[in-house]
């Protein structure tokens, strides 16, 4: 099978199936796959009038709303048994952490403890309203204060803004604090943010979002920030640098202290993308590295569930220099209990404003604090050590077959491979990833970081047993050998055994169909 004209997206990743694999296997009469039934859309039901809730159909006199009443509501309803079938059938088309290793690099797909879920649903925590009088939610404020304390101690930072709703929202919060701090110093003219080429897409997106010009910093041959290049770009126009540490190549930035020193010397602030904090939690405090602001993805390091794409939570720890600019609201404690500061009046009003309505992702705070209390300082340190150990074990077990772009020294919590070893096989990174699905594993992160050709970024996390890792390694070794042996159809048509074959992304984008009509 050759790649004559594969449809590629902008990063060179094929975006449409290259071949239509003839199904030679047994086929069911109506096209289902055994117990994995095809499931229609709820909108394809003939009768929309059913409902799964038993509310009385009362008559109201809404004459005061004349002209304001709707007449066009058309939404399908399901009874409870129909709903259970629909969603349980759909659920079975998903891969999940609870089924097998889910090694998406940079995403930290670790086990989600069920105690976290239980506590988030306790009456008095899960059901309280954000605008109840503070006298009736003292426990909620105490919980937020305790979570803040843990985050501050673990990062060695003096302050934390807890309202950001996800990692990217935390980046926004950090940059807005930096912007406000510069303006307060008469340095509002600083317009540039330096971002390494290996950064998460959210970093340049966030910087550009708040009006900064993004300038890229080169990477060295060993996968780190090029300090000389950084130094040459630091100047009176630079507001901040955004560096991920450990970085997106899974490596600790050895020169991080020097990077922070140079940054501060140039009058800029050091924003650290804390997406990979799970690799160092309990062992290294970002405050000791010279960081001014860092978001913490509670859904990564502290195990709140990823939920098919959120909700996350992205509290931002701040240095003394940035703390006064943290957004409202925040919790304060005094002799008689806790209070919420929600207004500018009566406080030294340097806060840069508000990130969202209410007080942040309380449901995630409960889960994260449950996780922290469960692990303790010793357990969290072990989390970092086991995460790093597992990643290095995978790297050591595969690097004779799969090429590693930065072979020198240990990696941190994720092992990065490139596609150099696939040269001449006609198998791409995408093909290799899709073949993993047929062997029962979720693919690794592909084609990221962008600085590594055909990147495969594998993050096992600390919650994988050695047995599971060994099974995963055996699969990757067998697949690598198959690729090298020329078993190309195994890869080009993959996945064969998933609920769906490869999907045509080009077609989806060309004539977008985003809702049922």
């Amino acid at each position, binding site marked *: 099978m050759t790649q004559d004209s594969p449809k590629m997206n902008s990063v060179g990743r094929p975006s449409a199936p290259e071949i239509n694999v003839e199904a030679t296997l047994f086929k069911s009469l109506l096209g289902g796959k055994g117990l994995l039934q095809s499931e229609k859309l709820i909108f394809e039901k003939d009768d929309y009038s059913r409902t799964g*809730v038993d509310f*009385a159909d009362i008559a109201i006199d809404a004459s005061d709303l004349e002209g304001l009443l709707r007449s066009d509501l058309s939404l399908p309803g399901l009874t409870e048994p129909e709903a259970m079938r*629909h*969603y349980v059938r*759909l659920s079975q088309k998903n891969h999940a952490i609870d089924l097998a290793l889910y090694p998406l690099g940079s995403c930290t797909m670790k086990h989600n403890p069920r105690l976290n879920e239980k506590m988030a649903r306790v009456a008095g925590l*899960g059901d309280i309203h954000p605008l109840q009088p503070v006298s009736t939610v003292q426990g909620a404020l105490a919980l937020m204060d305790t979570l803040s304390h843990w985050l501050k101690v673990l990062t060695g930072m003096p302050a934390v803004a807890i309202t950001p709703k996800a990692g*990217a929202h935390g980046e926004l919060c950090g940059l807005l604090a930096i912007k406000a701090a510069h303006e307060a110093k008469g340095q509002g003219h600083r317009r540039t943010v330096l971002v390494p080429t290996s950064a998460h897409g959210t970093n340049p997106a966030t910087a550009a979002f708040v009006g900064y010009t993004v300038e890229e910093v080169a990477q060295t041959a060993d996968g780190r920030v090029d300090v000389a290049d950084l130094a040459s770009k630091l100047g009176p126009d630079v507001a901040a640098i955004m560096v991920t540490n450990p970085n997106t190549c899974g490596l600790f930035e050895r020169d991080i202290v020097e990077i922070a020193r140079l940054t501060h010397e140039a009058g800029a602030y050091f924003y650290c993308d804390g997406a990979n904090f799970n690799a160092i939690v309990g062992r290294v405090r970002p405050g000791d590295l010279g960081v001014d602001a860092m978001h913490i993805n509670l859904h990564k390091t502290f195990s709140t569930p990823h*939920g098919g794409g959120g909700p996350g939570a992205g509290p931002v720890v701040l240095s003394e220099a940035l703390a006064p600019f943290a957004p409202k609201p925040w919790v304060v404690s005094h002799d008689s209990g806790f209070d919420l500061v929600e207004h500018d009046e009566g406080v030294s009003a340097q806060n840069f404003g508000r990130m969202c309505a209410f007080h942040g992702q309380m449901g995630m705070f409960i889960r994260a604090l449950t996780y922290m209390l469960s692990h303790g300082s010793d357990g969290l340190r072990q989390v970092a*050590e086991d995460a790093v150990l597992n990643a290095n074990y995978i790297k050591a077990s595969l690097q004779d077959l799969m090429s590693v772009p930065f072979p020198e020294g240990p990696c941190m919590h994720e092992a990065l491979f490139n596609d150099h070893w696939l040269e001449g096989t006609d198998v791409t990174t995408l093909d290799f990833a899709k073949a993993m699905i047929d062997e029962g594993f979720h693919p690794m992160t592909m084609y990221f970081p962008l600085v590594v050709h055909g990147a495969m970024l594998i993050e096992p996390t600390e919650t994988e047993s050695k047995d599971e890792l060994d099974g995963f390694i055996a699969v990757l070794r067998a697949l690598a050998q198959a690729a090298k042996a020329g078993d190309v159809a195994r890869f080009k048509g993959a996945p064969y055994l998933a609920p769906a074959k490869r999907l045509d992304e080009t077609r989806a984008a060309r004539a977008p169909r*985003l809702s049922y009509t």
Partner: protein
Amino acid sequence: MRYLPLSNGDRAAMLEKIGVDSVDALFVDVPESARRSGTVDLPKFAGELEVEAQLNAFADQNISPAKVPFFVGAGAYRHHIPATVDHIIQRSEFLTSYTPYQPEIAQGTLQVLFEFQSQVARLTGMPVANASLYDGSTAAAEGVLMATRVTKRNKAVLSGGLHPHYRETVETLAHAVGIETEACAVAVDNEADVLQHIDANTACVVVQTPNVFGTATDVTEIAKAAQAAGALLIVVVTEVMSLGLLKSPGEMGADVVAVEGQSIGVPLSYGGPYVGLFAAKEKYLRQLPGRLCGETVDADGERGFVLTLSTREQHIRRDKATSNICTNSGLCALAFSIHMSLLGQTGLQRVAKINYAKAHAARDQLVTAGFEVVTPRFFNEFTVKLAKPAIAVVEALAIKNVLGGVPFARLQNEPGFENHLIVAVTETVSDADIATLVATLKEVAQ
């Protein structure tokens, strides 16, 4: 340690395979000055029993809305959530999966998102909806940014009935990116005031219905006038349940709709996580923020779903992206979609009517008792103008175990509005609760 499967024997074998003596050798790249030999100063590992007790101790210091007459709203609402919803969202395949980057093994999540987008589109009366944003307030802010991209203009006008938290969220983001905002005077019933502030630089006007005081407004004429002046109309809805009864923003001519979806499927949870619904006219499709799920076919020609139009997004476009959003509110969108499916048009209309009826019964009883209700037309929330400051009144009510509403002054210090109390009445409120509210309010506020 119950969450860590590696034994010491495993660790030793793995270190040997790696070729190092100890785990410390794996942290060799950490600068010496930042290496810590011991643990940080926090409590040690604890079992489930102990942790549960600690968390319950926090819960015990709060008053659960289930235990008292409860009338607190103003942007987040207590509604009944069918048991099925929480059961399904805790299925491993939904709870412990991630953004559907591998569509072949994420068709469950993707079909749910497609159905979610379809439900949101129909509910708001708009042609396209995205796969969710963080919440209603950030959706409103994204809407303003989108309007400036579309119109190439640089000013947003915010109504005096817009929830103050929403206004502040919009202002924070807008000012950071250099967009000018103009907030109209706080008003119980004057959404049309936005039209007085439109100029040649106005990208959008933002109105809310029902607004923060509960007032429902037909914005049809506002839409026409704004569009005639070259500005987009952004309609904010903080009580999505109202769309079971009230005309949809789409029918009234909205260009963009930003909704807080919490009322359907998502518990109050002290303010988050919630789910932002974002819908727009079709012509703005490629300017939408956030994830979009689209229909396509697989290599066998079978229908399937993928994340699409990702060239708008940060992971492809980086500094040229329409938004920096990555993780959004997937599980809350699932909860919304399940609850919406269980309701259907029939259930939604019924529960909406019950909300209307209970709220109006409460209004009538308060008026009979001598209170001044200032909201002229409403769904399930209205504002009482008390004879004394509302903040002190709700504290006095709380002492008597009644959570009686939200003082407007809690949201914004605005002269003339110190005595305004926003009262929400949903299907979870009983007739006895209403009677208790009226009696207790007479006791403490008159």
